């Protein structure tokens, strides 16, 4: 498949790219404003791109990995996300949200699209290829909270069970609200309401400006 090839194709940095990066003064990603860096990326600044990657690489990869689970697939998706950042950085508009928000929103959507696409492909294979049989290795794991970030963890724990599961299944597993409803044995209207109540409560708990 095309995307597998994309990943495997360029395992080495071309000498010219290395040279350019080594020669240039590095941007300190922890001090420079990410929004300013993204603006530079939009103008084709490769060092700014490296700084954005250094600042957000583990957030993007971690999110992809959390949603997708398969580390190599998550790596592919993280790569796609950063290529998209490179391509469309000129569209970033600081008045509509932070740079981190922009990149992580792209990343989450891509991860969710990938996991749904892969699931649809698996369903099709199971439907049409009888010889494969059901996949016994795949264990549906119960939703657990093992987050690094203490505040987020605490805020999630402050939700009702239905709210928490609705948010968890949707955000961290890529379920649509209809799938969440099926998984929880609730109707879709209830699930939408729980998601809303859950987000409002999280927002207030985390101190996000409304």
């Amino acid at each position: 498949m095309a995307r597998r090839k994309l990943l495997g194709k360029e395992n080495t940095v071309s000498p010219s790219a290395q040279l350019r990066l080594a020669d240039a003064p590095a941007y300190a990603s922890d001090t420079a404003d990410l929004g300013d860096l993204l603006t530079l990326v939009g103008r084709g600044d490769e060092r700014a791109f490296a700084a954005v990657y250094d600042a957000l690489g583990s957030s993007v990869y971690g999110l992809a990995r959390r949603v997708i689970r398969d580390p190599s697939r998550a790596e592919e998706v993280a790569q796609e996300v950063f290529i998209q950042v490179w391509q469309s950085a000129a569209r970033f508009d600081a008045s509509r949200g932070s740079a981190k928000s922009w990149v992580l929103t792209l990343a989450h959507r891509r991860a969710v699209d990938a996991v749904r696409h892969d699931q649809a492909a698996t369903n099709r294979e199971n439907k049409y290829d009888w010889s494969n049989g059901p996949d016994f290795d795949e264990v549906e794991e119960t939703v657990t909270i093992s987050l690094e970030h203490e505040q987020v963890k605490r805020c999630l724990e402050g939700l009702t069970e239905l709210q928490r599961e609705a948010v968890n299944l949707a955000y961290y597993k890529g379920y649509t609200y209809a799938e969440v409803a099926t998984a929880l044995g609730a109707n879709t209207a209830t699930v939408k309401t729980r998601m809303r109540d859950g987000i409002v409560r999280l927002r207030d708990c985390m101190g996000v400006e409304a």
Partner: protein
Amino acid sequence: MSIDLHSLMAPYALDALERDERTRFEAHLDQCVDCQAELAGFMATAVRLGDAVSHTPPPALRDRLLSEITQTSQERPVVTALAQRRSLRRTLPRLAMAAAFLVGAVGVGGYVVEHENASEARNDKVAISQVIGADDVATSAKSFTAGGTVRMYASPSADAAVIIAHDMPSPGKGKVYQVWMIDKSGPTSQGTFVDDGEMIMKGVAGADRVAVTVEPQGGSKQPTSAPVATIPV
């Protein structure tokens, strides 16, 4: 609209909408200033959830990206991008309405662009969004009872058409779907896909219709079976 779009805001912020609903919500969002303000807080909250699960990526990823961007073209800045965004937004409600008429048009996310060359694929993606966002775009589709949709967006001003196949039933082992553009001189192959695919066809002015056939892996020079779908251009 029959369903309360406002109730989709939380699912939207969590990316818990099907693709068609996502499109519909975004069209609604454009006209709803109150929603935009509230959504910003919801999105920022979701970002915090995302940021709480960071994980150090393999070092090779950085190297690969820094190498790849040296060969990757970028979208042009602000003026062009804004104009494109406006024209896309204006078109979205119409597209969403067209989609609502398609029985069984389930939009399970994601697609595979079947191209060997990645940068060519990316250029195509830009061209594809230009066709779909064109002011004069017209859509037509064929849905299959067993599931799956082939949808076409044609724009006379761009002299191009986009074919998007979603969730197609398996064509069978060792088989692929092949897309043909048919004009007076006969069918011309446009490419192949298996379950999902997205492709752009240029120079459609003289074309009569687009057909999809099932062919052996790798595709055929000429169609070897009756079309499973035919869409007039």
